[in-house]
């Protein structure tokens, strides 16, 4: 399990990283305001009065 540093070419591509983006921020906001669940991939706070 795991790879050597010189085998990280594919893992270094932007699509292979977990993390927040403009789009994930929008998705969190939409689903936070329309559903009773939130969080999971990050903190669950909403920061808005939409729900």
């Amino acid at each position, binding site marked *: *399990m*795991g*790879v*050597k*540093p010189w*085998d*990280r*070419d*594919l*893992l270094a*591509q932007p*699509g*292979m990283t*977990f993390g927040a*983006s*403009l*789009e994930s*921020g*929008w998705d969190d*906001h*939409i*689903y936070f305001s*329309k*559903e*009773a*669940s*939130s*969080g*999971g*991939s*990050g*903190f*669950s*706070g*909403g*920061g*808005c*009065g*939409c*729900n």
Partner: protein
Amino acid sequence: MQLTPQKAEKKTEPKKSLKIALSAATATLLAVGSFAHAEESVPTEPPVPSNDSAQKPAVWDQPPSDFFSRTYSALKGWAKFNGEVGLLYYKETNRVSAFEPSVNLVAMFDGGKTWSNHLTLDSLTGASPNGATPSRNAQTFTGPSGNSTYSAPAGQVPVDGSFHDTRIAYSTGWFQPLGEKYEFTVGGGVSSEYDYRSLTLSSTVSRYLNSKNTKLSLGASLELDVSDPVGGAPQGFDTMNAKLPADKALGKTVQDFLIGLSQVMSRRLIVQANYSIGSSHGYMTDPYKLLSEVLPEANVNAGDSTGVYYYEKRPDARTKNSLYVGAKYHLLKLGILSGSYRYFWDSWHVHSHTFGVDYDLPLGPKWHAGLDVRYYLQSKADFYRPFLIQGEALPSYASADYRLGDMDAITVGAKIGKKIGEGKNDLTFHLQYYQQTPDSNLGAFGSLAQYTIAPSVKALILKMIFGF
């Protein structure tokens, strides 16, 4: 329309020749221009000595292009930048629409340190269900300010059409490696809208193990919110026309903790697992949601509205938990496949399962496309009640907000993107369809049984993102 790599290359050929022709024409014009300028600028008189201020005009005297290019050069020497700028348009059928421009800007410094900034504006308008049930008779409601009224025709779900809000939110974060094995992030954010303000502080520490193939993260976040509803904050089960305490702002605090693990499984596979727990205390009642009181089953007009509407009341404490797993698998020339699952449960007895799959496919050197599906299944909060019954004692808590009821939801989407310039920039359009289907079996009786109390919500989502 999908372009094969060959077609994409063919399409760029005419552009290349056009570009060469335009470059040649531009060069010729510039050359002619410079000769003309050279002829005009032959000195006929000795140059007049000038002082420094004449040589260096003040910032406000410089052409804007000069000012921006100098600022850009100064910033470029300070850090490298990347980011995204985008626009979200969200439109529900006959209900709310939202327009949300956002920008992410990340400054990257030596040693792997980064400073991220996120700014978003959020403008919402449209009609929102007020929580009351449909009725055989037309219904009239007092607006939140207490100074206006709106009506719902017989048999229709009552919606407050005056719903509009504008929110501005800014968040920032500092990330830096601490030696070879640790990373540290600290951040904060503020959000402000007409009737709600929020302040968030957060921090995460990560530790690499196993030759950086394993990453363990611990995070904590604190959120302080203030709700200042239009017309005052109902304390729960106030009736619609009751005079509410004016200018009373109510607070809420949210503490979140997260433990996460990401693991490189192979050259092509990485997985992540998180457990998070969040505790909220304070005012969590939706100040604009109502509950209908209906006539009991024994009444000859069973199910009809009595004309009495209560403001909802939610508990002032909530503990949320979630388990999240995600995976990304590189399919080499066939793109990247991502999947995720979240199990969520809370002290209000809401349980939910969320499944997500994303597929991104490169279409030659310039274009890329993607498909995504998300499925969400939720069970209701224990105090969810679509209506109250006349003559029965009021419960401790109750809300008719369909978002706390049993429901499922599906999102399907497709996107297309193109690299621009030398491949550093990327423009993507993403179109999604979102549909929520609340449970229709809500125990309605009498005249109420003929109506859909919580109808489906259908929305189109369009996202446009420019990455730089």
